[in-house]
């Protein structure tokens, strides 16, 4: 059980101990070089000896490292978890109170109103977290994905979150996937988590982020491109020289946006083809991911060696993936594109 967010570091280090061996085994069995996302997924197979999965066809069982839940979706997930009779969650789990605060006047007053109107929900989540060993983040402590990035994400990890923006943790090289409550329950009770083995989309970034161009523009550009090819059940993996100019924040921002806004349940017309379950990760060769803890100790994440892919081979690797299939599996985005930012309609 994690008593403090700092214990998450131990969770990650523990995982790293067996990582190199698992990646090596997967590489041998696959008989071909693996992309970063494939390495992460193979390293988390529930049964490392099962038949090799086929992209877009096989359903596999995975063992995620963490579960994160926001206060709206956590309610039924925890109620279900409680019926399984476990003393605590099978993997480290956190609950974040960020969705039920209504913005009206300003921080202090809105928070007080939310604490009053949602008192029973907060009390339930807090007491259940306390009982079953889950980390509880009170209303006002922050938005789930930013808190994950600050305290829990680590390169090479696999996480599920009951929120569509979960891929944000890709900013630190984690494969983080947004799921429904039922999936969270599976992982919390210790069942393997089922996933349709995803297809891959490689994005080669060239040039350098500068001027007014930011991570947001990269993802808006990609969203526009993917409208044609589609993004559901796919992992988007960034590589190429351009990734070096992206900060951790920018890397978190370039994760695919969800197709819907939960409160309105209306599709974002801008990106009709990106899945409601965006799956993603960022190439860590470029990701000397860093998480600063307050005020000390400071923890600097480095991508484990076994997860790195030499720069010289990346383009070849993606080309070979492209050639093996009839579809084009990677696209190029120059960071210094000339089309001026025009804004993008959300709903």
């Amino acid at each position, binding site marked *: 059980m994690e008593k403090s967010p700092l214990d998450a570091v131990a969770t990650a280090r523990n995982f790293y101990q067996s990582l190199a061996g698992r990646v090596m085994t997967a590489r041998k069995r696959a008989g071909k070089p693996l992309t970063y996302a494939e390495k992460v997924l193979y390293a988390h197979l529930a049964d490392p000896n099962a038949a090799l999965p086929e992209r877009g066809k096989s359903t596999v069982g995975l063992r995620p490292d963490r579960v994160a839940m926001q206060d709206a979706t956590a309610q039924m997930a925890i109620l279900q978890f409680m019926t399984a009779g476990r003393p605590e969650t099978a993997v480290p789990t956190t609950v974040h109170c960020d969705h039920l605060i209504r913005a009206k006047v300003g921080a202090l007053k809105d928070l007080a109103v939310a604490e009053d109107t949602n008192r029973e929900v907060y009390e339930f989540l807090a007491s259940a977290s306390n009982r079953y060993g889950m980390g509880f983040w009170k209303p006002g402590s922050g938005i789930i994905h930013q808190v994950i990035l600050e305290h829990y994400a680590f390169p090479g990890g696999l996480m599920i979150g009951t929120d569509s923006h979960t891929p944000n943790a890709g900013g630190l090289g984690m494969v983080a996937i947004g799921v*429904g409550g039922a999936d969270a329950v599976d992982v919390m009770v210790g069942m393997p988590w089922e996933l349709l083995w995803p297809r891959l989309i490689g994005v080669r970034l060239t040039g350098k982020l500068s001027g007014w161009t930011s991570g947001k523009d990269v993802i808006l550009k990609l969203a526009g491109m993917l409208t044609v090819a589609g993004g559901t059940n796919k992992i988007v993996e960034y590589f190429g020289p351009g990734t070096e100019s992206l900060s951790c924040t920018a890397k978190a921002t370039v994760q695919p946006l969800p197709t819907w806004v939960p409160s309105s349940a209306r599709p974002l017309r801008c990106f009709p083809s990106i899945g409601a379950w965006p799956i993603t990760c960022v190439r860590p060769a470029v990701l000397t991911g860093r998480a600063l803890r307050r005020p000390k100790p400071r923890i600097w994440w480095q991508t484990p060696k076994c997860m790195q892919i030499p720069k010289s081979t990346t383009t070849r690797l993606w080309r070979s993936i492209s050639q093996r299939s009839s579809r084009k599996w990677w696209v190029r985005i120059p960071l210094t594109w000339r089309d001026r930012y025009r804004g993008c309609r959300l709903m």
Partner: protein
Amino acid sequence: MKNEGYPAPLSAGLIGSCTNSSYEDIGRAAFIAREAKKHGLKARVPLMVTPGSEQVRATIERDGLLADLEAIGATVLANACGPCIGQWERTDVTFIGSPEVVVAYALAGRLDVDPIADGIPVDGKRVKLPAPAAQEFPAKGYAAGESGYVAPAGSAAAQVVVSPASERLALLEPFAPIDKQTGYRDLPVLLRAKGKCTTDQISPAGPWLKFRGHLDRISDNMFTGATNAFADKPGTGYNVLTGETGETLPAIARAYKAKRLGWVAVGDTNYGEGSSREHAAMSPRFLGARVVLVRSFARIHETNLKKQGVLPLTFADPADYERIGREDRLTFVGVDRLEPGRDVEVRITHTDGKIESFQVRHSLTREQIGWFMAGSALNLIRGQQKP
């Protein structure tokens, strides 16, 4: 913009939410705000900032970035999702941009100017803003702020607090296993869903979301969005006990449940497409669904039904869907001896006493048959826990 007929004046600018609320993001926005202040500019529309976390909020306050934004008229909201997930009182058209671009447009107050290329219009002149720059991490480290984290005790002695009077939350009772000999005989058909039947039609969201932690309450939405071949109005059906049509499907299901009568839901192709919403499997199980028999399933919903202990079956011959009438009773033969890959026989007893039978398929693995036998996946896990 003109082609789509969007209005030119902006009504608000929002900075923050999960993807753009880090120290660096706010730093870039604050840079533009400082430049604007030098020219005496203020935001022309309400500009709202939601810091991503208390750590970010405390740090940008200490480093003066918050003051920079407030100086051009920004309001700071709670460290939460807020407007980004619709938690505010507005229904406007929304556009996405980076924080610095949003500040520039808030200064301009309109969509039909390009504040970056052409500058902000002030008194007939244009003020050009330089490109933003900011530090990735605070030089002085993060400020702690108020700690919002609560460490768990993880002790069996700790109480979970749920008020029995609550309308939003209720503890769940484990679903009781169904007798495999008697529980699958002569079941009525609650509905024969026609055409599309998504998880949002099985368990509509909207106003029901506030009951998402209260299974009994939220189950009153069950199938209320579904088109039923046995009734004219969506969400209603035929009650075999009273012979009446027009009652809502959850009301009929509750009437059957009160008589301890299980029921079957029949569906068309790609039944349960949409989201992974677990309520779409839990509410039917709660109100007495024993079997969901369809032409084909959306994979995730099919798995959710298996987890909750409802038997998902597909017609071996899709044409058999048409054979099922509103007063028919269905018997599923051999569910006590389910084997992976072996078909199940269904006998229909029609009102005239005629009996027909046909084959249906299931996709349960040996492990999933274990869930079914235990009444749900969680029941099976509970049975495996050490006392």
